[in-house]
């Protein structure tokens, strides 16, 4: 289950669907899905479910089938929304694999310490760019 159908969320959804996994992608903005389709990411052969709703709402998550999810990814534009959705997935629905994107490095560090499996693209991206830059010079 993927929360947030932006560039990252739709990409993960498309890749995992192609790899043969059962995918549900949730976004509160109904236009997010057509935007992903216009970008050529979520194409017509995407077999996953697209659910319109707030990913921090327990009832929406239940309707989207979270109770049978093996993995959960929160990649909306809001750090706090991602943290809340992930904690619901992990602690309320006991989803075994939960990954959260947190842009704010400070918040990422705080929640990593509290046991939230965190990806901080700000730190990771900066490190990666630095590494590539140094290799070139």
């Amino acid at each position, binding site marked *: 289950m993927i929360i947030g159908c932006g560039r990252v969320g739709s990409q993960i959804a498309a890749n995992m669907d192609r790899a043969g996994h059962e995918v549900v992608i949730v976004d509160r903005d109904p236009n997010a899905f057509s935007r992903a389709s216009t970008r050529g990411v979520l194409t017509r052969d995407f077999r996953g479910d697209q659910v319109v709703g707030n990913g921090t709402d327990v009832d929406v998550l239940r309707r989207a089938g979270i109770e049978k999810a093996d993995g959960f990814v929160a990649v909306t534009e809001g750090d706090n929304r991602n*943290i809340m959705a992930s904690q619901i997935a992990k602690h309320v629905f006991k989803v075994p694999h939960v990954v959260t994107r947190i842009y704010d490095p400070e918040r990422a560090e705080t929640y990593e310490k509290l046991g939230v499996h965190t990806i901080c693209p700000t730190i990771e991206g900066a490190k990666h760019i630095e590494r590539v830059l140094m290799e070139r010079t």
Partner: protein
Amino acid sequence: MYVIVVGGGTVGYYLSRDLVERGHEVTLIEKEARRADWLETQLGSIVMRGDGCEVRFLAQTGIERADAMLAVTADDEDNLIALQVAKRHFRVKKTIARVNNPTNVEIFKMLGVDEAVSATEVLLAALEPPITT
């Protein structure tokens, strides 16, 4: 008591005003600059502009000696994160949330918030008289 209030909307404003009137020490945190300026004209220097979810900002509010934190913004996720940081990082004794989605009353308690209050639940309780048999 020293009380920190996160969110200077209508609820946060009246809450802070009444807490001050009752003799408590209050810090009211508001993220938006213009709203914070207005709050300051009404409540004075108890208003601080900043993000109530940020550890570094909260450290400047004297949170270590706070007896309670109330998070009353219109966004449940912001209220949850502010209170979790207060509770787990700063060991604030009592954390109280306003929740907008009534389902979140239970969820917040499961995720470590001490008390969660839903206006929807309060209004429904007022509407429906207790069942007497």
